[in-house]
């Protein structure tokens, strides 16, 4: 089988706050025979601050990584982080303008084509991996009630991200269904969590993330499933803050979808970094195992 070689851009948060996302993504992809090759000496994409200040400098940060990837002989670049992805995609779009392209090359001191396809790992898994998924499931997540939370960036702006429906995406829903989970309709699946405002204007994150957690609980979800390090951090790490700020009492685990795929395909808890989640998933998973055992007996 002709397996595409993909350049892997982990993103800064994968080295820190979302190490479990990076870990679980790597083992998930290895399990699916998706060959990920790290971009050697990759550097930060500039995240939110860079493009908020200067498009040219921000694009140059991204373009450096693209230029390295172009020399790797890969068929595309993937990243687990929608924020990084958005920077890659909008850089590509801006670089379609010849003057902008030339300015970036001048700043970098090297030339590049800026035309390698860039996708989220989620998109690759949803479009290619999902076919083989059912055969590899060892522990279906039967009975686990989840809400899929895509965040505001994964599918938007639609003409830049070009993935799934911008208002009612279903890729993550369908993946989770394939794992056997009970996927609840989630009206806030593309709402903003407050993103990086957690650092500068925390009150906004308290309100927006609080709303998402409220809604998840109202829907009867046992867990939230994300595909974004920023969303996951706001909903999971800041859940106690949100509770304090809103006088709420949420205690709902927030998984990365890659962790749940890992769980269902029989990967070890440590391989997928379950212990790194702030809100412990143990009680939910224990009840799930209990139920499944009952169902089996």
């Amino acid at each position, binding site marked *: 089988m002709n397996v595409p070689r993909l350049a892997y851009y982990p993103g800064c948060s994968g080295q820190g706050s979302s190490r479990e996302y990076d870990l679980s993504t790597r083992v998930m992809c290895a399990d699916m025979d998706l060959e990920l090759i790290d971009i050697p000496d990759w550097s930060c994409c500039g995240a939110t601050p860079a493009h908020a200040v200067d498009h040219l400098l921000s694009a140059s940060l991204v373009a450096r990584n693209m230029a390295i990837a172009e020399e790797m002989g890969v068929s595309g670049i993937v990243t687990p982080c929608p924020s990084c992805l958005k920077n890659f995609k909008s850089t590509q779009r801006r670089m379609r303008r010849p003057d902008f392209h030339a300015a970036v090359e001048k700043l970098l001191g090297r030339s590049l084509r800026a035309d390698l396809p860039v996708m989220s790992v989620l998109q690759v898994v949803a479009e290619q991996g999902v076919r083989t998924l059912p055969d590899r499931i060892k522990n279906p997540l039967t009975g686990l009630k989840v809400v899929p939370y895509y965040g505001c960036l994964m599918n938007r702006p639609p003409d830049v991200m070009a993935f799934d429906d911008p*208002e*009612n995406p279903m890729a993550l829903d369908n993946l989770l269904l394939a794992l056997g989970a009970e996927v609840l*309709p989630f009206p*806030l699946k593309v*709402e903003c969590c407050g993103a990086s405002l957690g650092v500068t204007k925390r009150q906004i994150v308290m309100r927006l993330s609080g709303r998402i957690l409220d*809604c998840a609980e109202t829907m009867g979800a046992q867990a939230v499933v994300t595909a974004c390090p920023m969303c996951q951090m706001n909903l999971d790490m800041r859940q106690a803050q949100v509770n304090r700020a809103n006088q709420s009492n949420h205690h709902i685990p927030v998984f990365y979808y890659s962790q749940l795929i890992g769980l269902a395909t029989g990967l070890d808890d440590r391989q997928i970094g379950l212990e790194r989640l702030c809100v412990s998933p143990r009680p939910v998973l224990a009840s799930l195992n209990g139920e499944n055992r009952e169902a089996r007996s």
Partner: protein
Amino acid sequence: MRIGVFVCHCGSNIEATVDTVAVAEAARDFPEVVFATDAMYACSEPGQAGIVEAIRENDLDGVVVASCSPRMHEATFRRTLERAGLNKYLFEMANIREHVSWVGKDRTANTGKAIDLVRIAAAKLRCDAPLYPAEFEVSKRVLVIGGGVAGIQAALDCADGGIEVVLVEREPSIGGKMSKLDKTFPTVDCSSCILGPRMVDISQHPLITLYTLSEVEEVGGFVGNFTVKVRRKAAYVDWEACTGCGLCMEKCPSKRVSDRFNEGIGKTTAINIPFPQAIPKKASIDAQGCLMLTKGKCGVCAKVCPAKAIDFTQQDSFVEEKVGAIIAATGYDLFDFAKYGEYGGGRYPDVITSLQYERLLSASGPTGGHIKRPSDGKEPRDIVFIQCVGSRDKSIGRPYCSGFCCMYTAKQTILTKDHLPDSQSYVFYMDIRAPGKLYDEFTRRAMEDYGARYIRGRVSAIQPRNGRYLIKGADTLLGEQVQIEADMVVLAVGAEAAVGAPALAEKLRISYDAYGFFLEGHPKLKPVETNTAGVYLAGACQGPKDIPASVAQGSAAAGKVLSLFSKDKLASDPQVSAVNLQRCVGCAKCASTCPFGAIEMTVFRGQNKASVIETVCQGCGICTVTCPQGAIQLRHFTDNQLLAEVHALCPY
């Protein structure tokens, strides 16, 4: 030949970028041109008088006018020639406005091109021959396609004028969109009370033949002599026998058929009469929902029908009608809001269209005129109306304003307050467009007297929350985000061309625009004509229209038909094909390629020859390029005439 050339300034339209005096000056050197001048407005009364006078004084026998498109004024100038006693086909027009002055700014280059065009016209004129139209009989019957309010008005006006009318309607009953409305703006009078009597008039008028559940299958012929094939779709009920008693509806066990008349709100039976005032009041069977027709067992309606009218074996049938004119009044359809994911894309049961809401308001609707939420049947308290759903939005390919949504939304907020005094309506709008008589006053009444809260801004999302809906949007006047919790959302869906409109346009050989609306002859001066003689337009098939405008157009189209039929005979266009018998070898290639069946093969002195039926020929010219002998020629566009033009332009 003694040719006169008249170069028109068209005010500054031509003169600004073409030196008309120089064009006239150059024309004087063309062969057989004996007179040339420029004129301020050649088409004006003094302009035409100048042409007549020049013809008489200079003994002219052919005229070239260099001005606008022949589509604009060819007929005008041909009449001028007739007044001066010349044959009107000894006339050529050089289009130096649309083809020259409006498209180029270089005065020198434009003047040169204008001179070339006049040279071409004069060269062709030298080869022109006088032509004489034949007369043909007019079939004084009219076909009206579409039984909505525009078609009803057109049909009644024609019939009252003494003309036989054939009215074809796709649905089982006439009445169209208006019959689904509860009340009408700005008078809030009952829609079915004002439309109902008109519908009854249609069924009772001795000059009107009504075919409902029928569609136009084929259209042949030409103005005065159209032949129309109508498909009468199987109703599975003998309508001669059916008395409309409704017993079949009571007993039909298949009660889960989507109710088309009620816009899918509520269910109906497989055999049904769409609504109490239906015309004709006859039952028909929805084949997809009928147990007998799908599974082969049931037949309850056939057992209970006192008139023994049920006929499960009925097939589509065809009737052919001969008419002299056709009025297309096929109306519009509603935008499918599923394209808007932010409004739920059709996933939320209490987010409905404005026409569905209209059915909830109507006493003959599925809830008996009580406003209830489709999801749980509860009365709503807070209702959000969102305007411009599928209007004025380039991103979904609907950049135009549908025109009537502002008004019906205002009406629906007023009716909502009447039905539910404790309710609160909110309207998200882009702009209020209410430019009709008493229209703006009406929208103000909705706000000021009925307390509808108008919020200028778009909605970004509708999200279900605790059995209600959270509507998030912008208030662009406050410059703030707003959130409203509501029990129900009504989307003011815009108008789009009726399903199948382009296909019908092609049958009628009329043009349609990029959105499927039929194209009028001229946006200002020929609003109900088309570019096909004898085919007229009425109502929203030409573009979104409210009821008063649709009715006005219905009457206007009827007026056009009546004036067409005021003559007993029409003059045929002599610019048709003609066969040179000496050259014709009788191969019949022309007869096989003619798309109109206008060529028949005859025997002349023992030899096969082609012969043109002049009233059927449309002058397309396909036969002339098919003929291996050059024996068949299109009059006024013969090979020699066209070659003369080419030689004039390319003399070397």
